[in-house]
C-alpha cells in the first residue's frame, strides 16, 4: 500500500482513490410522473444495485501515457466519465489537477448543419478555449486536419473520418494537462492515425501532457503507453507496465 501513496505525492496528475461507481437500476424504468407516483404510493420503488466500478485505485503521473484496457462493458467508459468530471464517484474520490481535453465525437460538440469552420469555433468554446487563441491557431488546426478545401462545407457532407480529424486537431492544438484519446480516433484512415500517434508521442515527450488512452486496439496501447490498467467487469484486474499487462490481457483470448 505504501507505493501508491508515495506516487500521489510525486507530481501525480490523476488520483483515482478507491473509486466505486454504483448505479441504482430501477426494477422498472419510470419515465412518466403517473407511473412514478403510483409506485411511490405503493412503496414499490425498488432498486437493484449495480457496481460498474469496484474499488478502482490508480495514479497517473504528469507526462505519462496511461492506457485503460478491458473487454466491452467492463467499465472503461464509466472510468473515463469519472475522470472527466461528468460523473461523480459513489465511493472514493477522483482528483484531477489541470485541464482536460477530450476528443469530442460526432453528434456531441459538432453540429451537422454548420460548416467546418463554424464547428471549430463551437468545439473550441466547449473545450474552454479562448476566442483569440482559436483565431491565432485556426490555420494550424486546418493544416493538421488536412481539410483546407472543405472548411466552408457543412459537416453533414463530411465522412466520420474527416470529423475525427477535426476533433483531434482541435483537442491537440493546445497543450492540455490531460488528453483523453478514445475510440473516436479509430475511424481515421491509417495515414491519419499514424499522424495522430506522432502528435501524441510529441505531446508525451514534452513531459507536460498526460495522455489517457482507451482503445480496443491492443497494438496501439502497446506502442503508446508507459503503463496500463486493466479493468474487467468493474474490477481492477491488473495495473503495471504495458508489456506485462498487455501480455496478460492477450492471454484472455488464447
Amino acid at each position, binding site marked *: 500500500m505504501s507505493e501508491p501513496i508515495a506516487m500521489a505525492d510525486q507530481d501525480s496528475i490523476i488520483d483515482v482513490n478507491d473509486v466505486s461507481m454504483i*448505479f441504482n437500476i430501477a426494477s422498472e424504468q*419510470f*419515465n*412518466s*410522473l*403517473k407511473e*412514478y407516483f403510483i409506485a411511490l404510493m405503493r412503496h414499490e420503488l425498488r432498486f437493484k444495485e449495480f457496481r460498474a466500478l469496484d474499488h478502482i485505485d490508480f495514479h497517473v503521473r504528469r507526462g505519462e501515457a496511461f492506457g485503460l484496457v478491458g473487454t466491452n462493458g467492463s467499465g472503461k467508459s464509466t472510468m473515463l*466519465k469519472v475522470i*472527466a*468530471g*461528468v*460523473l*461523480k464517484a459513489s465511493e472514493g474520490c477522483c482528483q484531477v489537477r489541470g*485541464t*482536460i481535453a*477530450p476528443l*469530442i*465525437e460526432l*453528434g*456531441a*460538440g459538432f*453540429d451537422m*448543419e*454548420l460548416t467546418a469552420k*463554424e464547428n471549430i*469555433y*463551437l468545439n473550441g*468554446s*466547449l*473545450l*474552454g*478555449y*479562448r*476566442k*483569440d*487563441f482559436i*483565431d*491565432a*491557431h485556426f*490555420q494550424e488546426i486546418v493544416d493538421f486536419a488536412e481539410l483546407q478545401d472543405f472548411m466552408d462545407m457543412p459537416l453533414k457532407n463530411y465522412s466520420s473520418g474527416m470529423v475525427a480529424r477535426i476533433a483531434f486537431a482541435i483537442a491537440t*492544438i*493546445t*497543450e492540455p494537462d490531460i488528453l483523453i484519446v478514445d475510440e473516436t480516433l479509430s475511424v481515421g484512415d491509417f495515414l491519419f492515425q499514424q499522424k495522430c500517434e506522432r502528435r501524441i508521442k510529441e505531446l508525451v515527450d514534452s513531459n*507536460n501532457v498526460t495522455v489517457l488512452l482507451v482503445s480496443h486496439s491492443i497494438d496501439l496501447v502497446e506502442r503508446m503507453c508507459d503503463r496500463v490498467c486493466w479493468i474487467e467487469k468493474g474490477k481492477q484486474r491488473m495495473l503495471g507496465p504495458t508489456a506485462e499487462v498487455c501480455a496478460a490481457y492477450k492471454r484472455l483470448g488464447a
Partner: protein
Amino acid sequence: MDAVSREAQISAKDAWYSGRSKDWFILEQLVTKDFKLKYRRSVLGVAWSVLNPLFMMLVLAAVFSSFMRYQDPSMGNYAVYLILGNTAFQLMSDSTTQGMSSIIAAAPLLKKVKINRYIFPVQKVLFAGVNYAFSIVAIALVMLVERVPLGPTALLWPFALLMLILFSIGLALLLSALSVFFRDVMHLWSVVITAWTYLTPLFYPVSVLPEWLRGLEMFNPMYVYVTYIREVVLYQQVPSLKMHIACVACALVSLLVGYLSFHRHEHKFILYI
C-alpha cells in the same frame, strides 16, 4: 506578420478561459449557432423574424378587431395592443419550450465534457431574446403605420424585458430539470402554454373577464409583464409601484425556484439522459 506575433503571444499553454468568461463564449457560440441554423437556406432569412409577428398580428386583428373594439375603448390601438402582447408572450413560450428539452438534447456532450449545465437552458432563453429584438422592428413598423407615438416612458421597456427574461430563465431551468426525470412534462407543458395563452389578455381586454377571473389575473406573471409593456409603450404611462414590484417579484421567485431545483438535481442528470 501580425498573425505570427499574435501566435507568439498566445502560447499553447494559456489557451483557456478561466471562470465565467468561458461560459460567455460558449453561450455566444451556441446562440449564434441557433440563429444561423434557423435561417439557413431560407430566402428571406432574418426577415422572417420580423414578418412572423406581423402576420400573426394581421390575422388576429382581422378576426377580432371588429367586435373587440366596442368592448373596451380604453384598449387603445388594437393592432399595437395585439403585437405587444403576442411578442412578449412568444418570448416566454419559446424560451420555456425550447429550454425544457435543452438538457436532454445536450446529452452526448454532457456525458463527455465538463460544462456548466445551466448554459443550455439559458442559451434557449437568450435565443428567444434575440428573436424578440427582431420583433421590435415589427412593433415599430406597426406603430408607424398606425401613427401611435412613442413617449419617453418607453425607456422602461428594457427593464420589463430584462425581468421577463429572468422570469423565463427561471422557468426554463425548472422545466429542463424536471423533463430529465419525467419526460411527460414536455407534453404537459404544451397544454399549459395553450391554456396560458387564453388566460392572458393577449387579444382581449381584461375587462371582458368575469369578476373572479379578473382578480386572479394579478397572480398571472404574464399578465403583469404584458400589461407593464403596454403601459409604457402604448399608453405612455409610468406603471404603478405595485406593478414594478410585481415584475421584479415574479422574476426573482421564478429564478430562485428554478435555480434551486436545477442546482439540487443537476449532478443526477447524467444518470437519466
